[in-house]
């Protein structure tokens, strides 16, 4: 259920790209290159102790270079994996970076996933002021919501599920507008809002990973560490907790796991939610936005595969439906 639309399948299957990544791998690594499974718009080749990553088509060189400068510095050491080289290389029209290889979380055993370690790493990341790092672009979370929703059908062609997801998206305040040739159709940040949802100036508590999930951690020399700087940037760190929060709110993630994750984050001094009190004051909007994004990705995945939504995917649509009801109830309560 990744970001898969718009992927150039010929490029993905391109032996040339893989060969070129393999050559780069041999320059830094110490074993014959092998292709690792990953999301469809990214190609990763492992060569022994290093992995070579071809970033998604269309990734901008300057934002990636800025993020590489940030992760190559000492401030994020032990939190976010340092690259083998800070250089951004090219293979064909793709940007390429080189990283130490690590052991990912075992997808066969999600119950044993290191939720607490992830929470502590995020708390550590969030404690670094964005201003202490080389200048960074905005974190990638909020913009992805609209991009994912924009891929759904609209108008009379939209299915019932697509209409629910779009309605939920439209009910969320202050998200970046939907991209597309028809112009923005999503809600715009109101004139009273200095920053769109998830955006903030580079003060304290302003650094976010931008795309955290269980695939964004590896074990290197026995320690878990965050990976993937592609969406690292200045933004509301509450967005990094939004995926598990959305899963919990949908009834997919066991409450026990969610509360363990949240407690570990708070115990580690994470600034995205207060040390006590109701965490949903900060999590509500990001978690609703991620619910919409996950539901949009689910509908797109089912459509691509020409099948009905499965039970888990339907749960996300139900959650969108509740968001619409909740937001309209809040709205009518506010305006009376």
């Amino acid at each position, binding site marked *: *259920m*990744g*970001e898969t639309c718009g992927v150039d399948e010929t490029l993905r299957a391109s032996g040339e790209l893989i060969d070129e990544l393999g050559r780069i791998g041999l320059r830094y690594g110490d074993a014959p290159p092998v292709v690792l499974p990953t*999301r469809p718009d990214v190609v990763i080749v492992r060569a022994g102790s290093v992995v070579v990553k071809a970033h998604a088509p269309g990734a901008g060189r300057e934002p990636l270079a800025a993020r590489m400068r940030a992760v190559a510095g000492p401030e994020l050491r032990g939190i976010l994996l340092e690259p083998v080289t800070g250089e951004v290389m090219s293979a064909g029209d793709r940007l390429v970076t080189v990283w130490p290889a690590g052991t990912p*979380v075992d*997808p066969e055993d*999600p*119950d044993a*996933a290191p939720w607490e370690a992830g929470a502590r790493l995020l708390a550590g990341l969030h404690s670094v002021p964005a201003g202490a790092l080389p200048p960074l672009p905005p974190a990638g979370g909020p913009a*992805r919501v609209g991009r994912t929703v924009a891929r759904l059908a609209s108008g009379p062609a939209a299915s019932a599920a697509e209409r629910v997801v779009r309605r939920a998206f439209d009910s969320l305040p202050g998200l970046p507008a939907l991209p597309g040739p028809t112009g923005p159709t999503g809600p715009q940040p109101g004139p009273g809002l200095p920053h769109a949802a998830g955006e903030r100036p580079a003060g304290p508590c302003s650094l976010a990973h931008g*795309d955290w*999930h*269980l*695939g964004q951690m590896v074990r290197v020399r026995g320690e878990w560490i965050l990976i993937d700087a592609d969406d690292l940037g200045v933004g509301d760190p509450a967005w990094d907790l939004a995926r598990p929060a959305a*899963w*919990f*709110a*949908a*009834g*997919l993630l*066991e*409450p026990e796991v969610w*509360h363990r994750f949240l407690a570990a984050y708070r115990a580690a001094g994470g600034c995205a939610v207060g040390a006590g009190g*109701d*965490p*949903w004051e900060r*999590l*509500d909007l990001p*978690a*609703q936005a991620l619910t919409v994004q*996950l539901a949009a990705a*689910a509908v797109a*995945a089912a459509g691509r595969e020409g099948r009905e939504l*499965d*039970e*888990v*995917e339907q*749960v996300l649509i*139900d*959650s969108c439906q*509740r*968001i619409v*009801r*909740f*937001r309209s*109830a*809040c709205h*009518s*309560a506010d305006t*009376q």
Partner: protein
Amino acid sequence: MQCPKCRGNMRTYERNGVHIDQCDGCRGIFLDYGELETLTRMESQWSQQHAAPAPPPPPPAHGAPGWGAPAPHYGGHYGHHRQRSWVGMLFST
């Protein structure tokens, strides 16, 4: 009149023009033909007169958001842990 359920004695009451029979034994209530409609009509008149604003969403309970899955839902999906789409979602962008 005898209660159709427990055979107890039913007593007749008149409340605001609605005629009800209540059983002394099981407290069950019998409505005459049309009385249910009368009650519904009176209820809607009452709520129009007392046009209360829509109640705000209930406050979050047990650390869950107001828009979260209702409590009985919990437990319902966890059995599908091995479902491909759930595991895929845990690990993907």
